[in-house]
């Protein structure tokens, strides 16, 4: 099939590429070098060393926090996608006149301030919070539920709350080419609802869903503000270690090593997921012309 626009388009990526190379890759490569140097107070000095990376991997607390990050990040990403998918489906196929308003409401919720939102969750989940008061009011419980706040659950809920609108938007965009007529045809041919999902909807939405999952996972795992306000002592994640390294102890080299170790972890995850997509042949969008 002739593709009339095949060579030129790459040029369009140039501004973004150059910008990112200049203002992202270059400073970060420079900083990558830092991770191999020795950290002095809020600076680095010359003895080249691998010790920073060694410390990153061998410290107990890092392992514990990494586990937390995996769990919380994974759950937040999983639930975000899980809840967003039916919402995106509804928007695409069942919304009708309501599409504009609902989409607007979903995106608008993203415009609320991040910090204020976190405090709102404290008002919801705390001992005197909305949920407890509501449940007590209708008589379901006598004592306020203690396990809602200051733990991983609260952190996960808040993270899903933050990223859900974004995932909905991504999946909605992903469902675009799937005409309702295809679904109807499938239904006419005898495919049950589940089958339609598995063989028609899912393949199309798999790639954006995986990208969104990765996004939410990466951002959740590295967050250090939400865990501090909602996580108690058990909801702390790995991102806080970077903060401690740079700001608290002023060890730029260790901090750089920490950040790059996390990056390596994410790249591994990215590669694994990309591979999984390719193996299940869900990575390319095909058109029945």
């Amino acid at each position, binding site marked *: 099939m002739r593709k009339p626009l095949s060579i030129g388009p790459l040029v369009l990526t140039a501004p973004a590429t150059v910008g990112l190379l200049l203002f992202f890759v270059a400073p970060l490569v420079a900083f990558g070098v830092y991770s191999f140097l020795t950290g002095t107070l809020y600076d680095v000095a010359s003895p080249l060393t691998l010790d920073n990376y060694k410390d990153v991997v061998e410290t107990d607390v890092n392992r514990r926090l990494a586990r937390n990050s995996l769990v919380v990040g994974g759950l937040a990403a999983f639930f975000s996608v899980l809840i967003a998918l039916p919402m995106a489906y509804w928007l695409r196929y069942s919304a009708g006149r309501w599409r504009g308003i609902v989409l607007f409401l979903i995106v608008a*919720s993203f415009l609320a301030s991040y910090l204020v939102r976190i405090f709102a969750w404290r008002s919801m989940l705390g001992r005197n919070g909305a949920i407890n008061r509501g449940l007590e009011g209708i008589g379901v419980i006598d004592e306020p539920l203690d396990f809602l706040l200051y733990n991983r659950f609260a952190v996960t809920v808040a993270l899903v709350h933050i990223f859900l609108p974004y995932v909905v938007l991504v999946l909605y965009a992903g469902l675009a080419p799937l005409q309702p007529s295809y679904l109807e045809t499938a239904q006419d041919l005898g495919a049950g609802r589940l089958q339609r999902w598995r063989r028609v909807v899912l393949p199309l939405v798999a790639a954006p869903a995986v990208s969104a999952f990765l996004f939410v996972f990466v951002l959740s795992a590295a967050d250090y503000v939400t865990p501090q306000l909602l996580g108690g002592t058990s909801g702390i994640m790995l991102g806080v270690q970077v903060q401690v390294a740079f700001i608290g102890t002023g060890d730029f080299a260790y901090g750089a090593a920490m950040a790059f170790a996390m990056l390596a972890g994410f790249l591994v995850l990215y590669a694994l997921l990309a591979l999984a997509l390719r193996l299940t042949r869900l990575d390319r969008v095909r058109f029945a012309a």
Partner: protein
Amino acid sequence: MTGTRRSPATGAFTIAGLVFLWAPLLLVALFSFHSTGSLTFPFEGFSTRWYDEVFSNEVISTAAKNSLIVATSTALITVLLGTLAAYGLTRTSSRLRGPLSLLFFLPITLPGLFIGIALLVAFSRVEWSLSLVTVTIAHLVYVFPFFFLVARAALERLDPALEETAADLGAGRWTVFRRVTLPQVWPVLVGAAGLAFALSFDEFVITFFVIGPDSTLPLYIWSGLRRTIDPSINAISTLLLAFTMLLFVVTFLLTTWGERRRRGRGLTEDPLVLTGPAEGTT
């Protein structure tokens, strides 16, 4: 085609999702009118004192102004660069597609704190003095992957047949983009632009390091938390939410109205439908 298929299950999910998203925000708005300084129940009574405080506070308005400048610039430039990049990447068959995709995804994999300090060191090395400009640059780096992911998802799923037909009929590349591609995806891109704006507005980790002697609103709030937390932050957030929502409604109405006028009779559809090959519009 406004294909409406009845689907009570997903409809219920959507309602639940909306409730989940908006309940805390309504709580924020509620407490912004609290007569006492408490952010938790019991609710003592209504008062506009926090709004009065916010409006009379010069520091807040300066910080808010800075945030607005940076967020707007970031959103606009991101839309431009991101749409170009997504369009380019999805229309090329070059082998660079994979590596470029990775590059565009990369900024979110590093903690904001790290990016902030790295940029600070870089700016200081080249003796580029800190200001709202350096903040905007840093925000562009941070926000780009978000916008790009949405734009790419939207653009790569368009059937190329439409564009090819237009090209065959003699339309230049820019015309094809403007009259075939863009009309199909612009609502989603506007949504993503809104997200870019919100992300930039809310950012304070990277911002702290690359900003000159200024503050943005989240920096002000985050610093003020040290001493006391009172509903003035609720008031600020509610005002912001109302303001940005209004902005979006206006933008949306204007663009839709403009679309409708240009299309004349041709557009009978809800512009939010992402059309495909079965729908023919010229």
